[in-house]
Structures are given as structure tokens and as C-alpha cells.
């Protein structure tokens, strides 16, 4: 292929022109987009703030899940420890708790078959999968696909408490990480929100 001098020079001129044009051209477009966004948020700043407050309130409500009452669950499962909200574990974990109830952290719960069945139906209705709150959704998505044996071994729960020193859990009025109610006075109502947490000093 033969290329003459003229067309070579033309090509050079054209490409330089394109280059010099293209850079400011692109950045200008971007600037314009930024401006547009700034303008939009500026126009609706007040409205946006109002929305933020409403959204925060909604999120908070969604972060609470009322405790699904059950006389049987309370009778069988709250003598030795805090009555754990059924949304604190996935169904597969509750099934394992019931299945292994003759070797429950060193205790033999000696549950009759009828009681096991009734407790399982309760967990089937109210486990984390069926609990409408942010904490339950996080427990689920962070734990998949393992079968946690404890609430306190789940990654989301561990992360939320990572700043608390081990010695704090040993304070006489707390005793154990598993004693949720000591620091979450509204925990029995499914409210573990930051603003309702109170760590006892002793």
C-alpha cells in the first residue's frame, strides 16, 4: 500500500485536532453531569432531609421485631437463661438445638416428643427467616450456609460486639455474653437497637 505525503499530513492534523478537542470535550460532559446532580440535590435539599428523617424512623421500626409470645417456649426455655428471640437463629439451627436437646451445653433437657414437636412448629413460624427486622436479615445473610450452634457464634453478632472487652461480659450483673438482657433491656421485645443498649457498670 502506498500513502502519499499529503494524506499523511492531513491524517496527522486531523488526529491532533481530535485529541485536543476530545479531552476538554469529555471532561466538559462530566462536569455538566456533576452540575446537574448538584442542582437537583440543591433544589430539593429540604425535602431530602425530611425524607432522611422518615427513612431513619422506618429503618428503626424495621430493626425491632415484637416477641412472638408462647407459653410453652417460655416454660421450657427460660429457666436457665434469657428467653432468646426466635429470630436470632435460622431454622436449621433451632432444629439442631431441639434435636440435640439431650446434650444441651452439658444439660439433658429431657423434652418429651410432643413438646419437641410443638417447639419445632413455633420455630418454624418465627425463626430468622420469618422475622421482619434488619438484625434478623443480617444474621441470615452473614451465617449462610453454616448451621450455627449458638447465637453468639454468628458472624453478625460477633461483629456487633467486637468492641466489648471480654472482662465486661464477666461483670457480676452480666455473667455471660449469652445473657443478652443484661445489656439489652428491651431485648426481650426484639429491640437490640444501639440507642436502647445499656452496659451495666458492675
Amino acid at each position, binding site marked *: 500500500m502506498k500513502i502519499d505525503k499529503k494524506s499523511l499530513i492531513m491524517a496527522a492534523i486531523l488526529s491532533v485536532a481530535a485529541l485536543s478537542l476530545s479531552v476538554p470535550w469529555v471532561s466538559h460532559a462530566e462536569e455538566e453531569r456533576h452540575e446537574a446532580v448538584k442542582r437537583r440535590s440543591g433544589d430539593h435539599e429540604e425535602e431530602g432531609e425530611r425524607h432522611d428523617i422518615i427513612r431513619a424512623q422506618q429503618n428503626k421500626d424495621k430493626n425491632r421485631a415484637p416477641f412472638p409470645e408462647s407459653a410453652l417456649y417460655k416454660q421450657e426455655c427460660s*429457666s436457665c437463661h*434469657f428467653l432468646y428471640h426466635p429470630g436470632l437463629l435460622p431454622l436449621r439451627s433451632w432444629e439442631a438445638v431441639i434435636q440435640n436437646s439431650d446434650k444441651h451445653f452439658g444439660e*439433658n433437657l429431657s423434652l418429651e416428643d410432643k413438646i419437641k414437636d410443638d417447639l419445632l412448629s413455633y420455630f418454624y413460624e418465627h425463626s430468622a427467616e420469618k422475622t421482619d427486622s434488619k438484625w434478623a436479615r443480617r444474621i441470615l445473610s452473614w451465617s449462610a450456609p453454616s448451621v450455627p450452634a449458638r447465637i453468639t457464634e454468628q458472624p453478625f453478632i460477633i461483629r456487633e460486639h467486637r468492641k466489648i472487652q471480654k472482662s465486661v461480659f464477666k461483670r457480676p450483673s452480666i*455473667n455471660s455474653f*449469652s*445473657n443478652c438482657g*443484661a445489656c439489652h433491656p428491651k431485648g426481650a421485645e426484639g429491640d437490640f437497637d444501639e440507642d436502647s443498649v445499656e452496659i451495666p457498670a458492675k
Partner: protein
Amino acid sequence: MKRRLAGIGAAAAVVLGGAAISQAATVLNAQMQEYVNSLLTEARRNDPGVKTFSAGEGKRFFNMKRVHSAKKEERSCSGCHTSNPLTRGKTPVGKILEPISPAANKERFTDAMKVEKWFKRNCHNVLERECTAKEKGDFIAYLTSL
């Protein structure tokens, strides 16, 4: 205080022949009387030398400490129920327990099924075996004597 408790305990340790326990402080209801009678029958079957249940023995049993073979920690009935049965206790997981003595908590020793259920659990927890009929009878004699 200790001496007074022991005194009352000794006084209540008197148990009539085959009949139910009669104590200074707490009168057991019909189902519990029946339960205690069956414990006494069983205790005598195990050891013909057994005449009565003893609040003094029950007190000793209540406070006896034993090292758990697997957990290597000291355990006792008083570990959770505290050495003063008239006060509230607490489990290792931090759950508060109402006083174990009926003198401070009327609901205690009124439901034989419940009592038997918790003997089973707690005796395994502390002794790694079931309690004998004598141990159960003495335990009840002590706590109903306060």
C-alpha cells in the same frame, strides 16, 4: 443467724414413722406429701437403716461442693441457689432464680412433677448422676424447715 438456722433445721428433722414430713415452717400439699412418702419408702428399700429424712443432712448436701469430671469446676446446689436458700440465686448464664426455700417463695415444693424434673437436671449437673431418694428427701426436709 447460722446457728439459728441450724437449730430450726434440727428441730424440723423429726419425721414421723411412715407418714409425711411435718416441719416447723412449711406444710406440704397432698401431692407433695405423697411424693415425699414414696421417697421414704424407696430410701428404706435401699437402706433399711433409714428411719427419717434429716434437715441437717439436707443442709450438708445442699452446700457440698464437687468438682465436675469434664468441666473441672466446682459445683454445688448452693452454686446456683446460693448458700442462703432464702435469697435469690443465679445460673452461670446470669438468669436470676427466685429463692429455693418455700419460706421465701410459696411456689416451691408444690408441684411434684416440677420438683422431680429439676432434681433430675440439677443432680446430673452437680453430681453427674441422679440423686438418691434419701438425698432428695433430706433436701426437701432442709428447705421446708427454714
